[in-house]
């Protein structure tokens, strides 16, 4: 057993839920971090503190509470910008999550810029939220949706992108920086370089990457970038859309309502400056303010260390799981090409049954299609089981998972 680069014992003390027992007396082993992460007490307290002391609507009123709440809210924007290296704070737009961020782009940018016979390119390993909005848009516009396929190692076949780009009709290439099923880390630089050369815009779904590795948006050269707070120690109901200022300025607004306007008249209205133009209505103020603390927490650990910890743990888990007979593991075998997500299928045990069985030992893993049915079709499976790690997970917990898998083996008489 190797020592982690993180002080995991200390970290675990910040996550009260990890002390919890489930199924009567089993310590919780939480391995569904790709779905949502747990929250440290610091984040929970930040939310509480907002409601106890600062609660007020933001941006509009002049009284003391409103000024405090507004400045906490806007301070989060600065923190987010710094965390993913974005120079222009007004390019950071708060949404409910990655899903809303992508839909915002599809509606506001897509409906204006995508025309009949245009092509939008996505990939076979996307989450539904990076497929369905584009299905809706291309259907509305009579445009086409194309997929970059994956090879048997779970990596994108980038030659297929070249073929699409050659048509000259591609308007957007959209892909996740890390697959939520296979853990594959996309060769982002290569795709962006190809697209830039072809004058094609790129959207990166960073829902799985930003929580687990260092991301530098300004130096990446993409056009849109999205991620969710709840997968990176932050509250539910908060996400980020980043896009270049020039693009945001050209985009019509998405939701109409309070805060996004400059002047409303009966028959015409002008829009507020960025980022407010895209933030209509009372936002999730408590959530946004809590997110700042999550970013502080991750920043203190350092994203390089977070990645290092997870790589080590993933390596250990891959070794242990692959020792089990009749086990099929998906995704890249090269640890440098994957994040802390392991999908697998065990003999003829359906993932739901497997997840139910290991749950009895307190182990929370995900089973099903992981909102990636296109990938399931490609892998020719109905579902997979998935274990995914974060800063508080340990090799001991992997061992508990292995033991639980052995119970499944007995029950199913494998």
């Amino acid at each position, binding site marked *: 057993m190797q020592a982690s680069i993180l002080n995991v014992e200390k970290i675990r003390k910040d996550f009260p839920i990890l002390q919890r027992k489930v199924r009567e007396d089993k310590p919780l082993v939480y391995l569904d971090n790709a779905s949502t992460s747990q929250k440290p007490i610091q984040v929970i307290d930040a939310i509480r503190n907002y409601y106890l002391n600062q609660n007020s609507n933001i941006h509009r009123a002049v009284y003391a509470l409103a000024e405090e709440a507004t400045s906490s809210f806007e301070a989060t924007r600065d923190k987010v910008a710094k965390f993913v290296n974005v120079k222009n704070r007004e390019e950071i737009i708060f949404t409910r999550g990655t899903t809303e961020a992508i839909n915002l782009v599809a509606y506001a940018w897509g409906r204006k810029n995508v025309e009949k016979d245009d092509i939008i390119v996505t990939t076979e390993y996307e989450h539904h939220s990076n497929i369905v909005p584009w299905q809706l848009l291309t259907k509305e516009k009579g445009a086409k949706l194309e997929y970059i396929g994956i090879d048997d190692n779970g990596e994108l076949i980038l030659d297929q992108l070249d073929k699409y780009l050659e048509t000259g009709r591609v308007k957007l290439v959209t892909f996740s920086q890390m697959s939520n099923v296979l853990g594959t880390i996309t060769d982002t630089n290569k795709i962006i370089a190809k697209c830039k050369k072809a004058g094609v815009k790129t959207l990166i779904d960073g829902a799985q990457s930003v929580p687990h590795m260092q991301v530098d948006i300004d130096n990446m050269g993409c056009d849109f970038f999205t991620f969710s707070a709840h997968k990176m120690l932050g509250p539910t109901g908060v996400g980020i859309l980043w896009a270049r200022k020039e693009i945001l300025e050209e985009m019509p607004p998405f939701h109409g309502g309070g805060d996004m306007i400059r002047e409303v008249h009966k028959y015409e209205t002008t829009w507020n400056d960025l980022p407010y133009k895209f933030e209509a209505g009372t936002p999730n103020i408590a959530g946004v303010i809590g997110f700042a603390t999550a970013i502080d927490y991750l920043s203190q650990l350092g994203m390089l260390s977070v990645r290092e910890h997870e790589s080590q743990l993933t390596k250990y888990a891959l070794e242990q799981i692959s020792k089990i007979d009749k086990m099929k593991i998906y995704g890249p075998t090269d640890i440098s090409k994957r994040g802390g997500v392991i999908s697998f299928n065990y003999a*003829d*045990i*359906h*993932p*739901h*049954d497997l997840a*139910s*069985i290991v749950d*009895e030992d307190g182990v929370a893993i995900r*089973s*099903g*299609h992981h909102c990636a*049915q296109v990938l*399931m079709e490609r892998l020719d499976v*109905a*579902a997979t089981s998935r274990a995914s790690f974060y800063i508080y997970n340990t090799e001991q917990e992997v061992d508990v998972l292995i033991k639980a898998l052995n*119970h*499944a083996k007995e*029950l*199913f*008489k494998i």
Partner: protein
Amino acid sequence: MSSADIYREIILDYYRNPRNFGKLENPDIVKRDSNPLCGDELEMHINIKDNKVADVKYTGKGCAISQASASLLTEMMMGKDFDEVKKLSKEDILENLGLTELGPTRLKCALLSLKVLKYGIYSYLIEKLKDTSSADKIKKEASGLF
């Protein structure tokens, strides 16, 4: 209930040796559905003759619970008269599978087949028998299953 109680001989047997798996050639009733939460899929084919279930088959993919329940349900229906089939309930299935107190998520696995059956009957009542009154009752029952 514990996994040791759920995954007993009966479920595993139906899962690994499904009865009535397949399709019918000219079915009177064809119904397909899926569980959006987990992706389980099920298609059921039924032939009705002289107001009785003359034949029934199903195809699908999913967990042991959903597949065993589908398999068992086809057995329970076979040869029954139409009114009896209409009355098959949630409790009938769970009892026959030996399942009690399933969590809400797994309960949906166990009941997908019954939902497909109920919607199948509903369509049959409406389209073939032009019977809207009892169809509505069945539809309500079906939508209450999930």
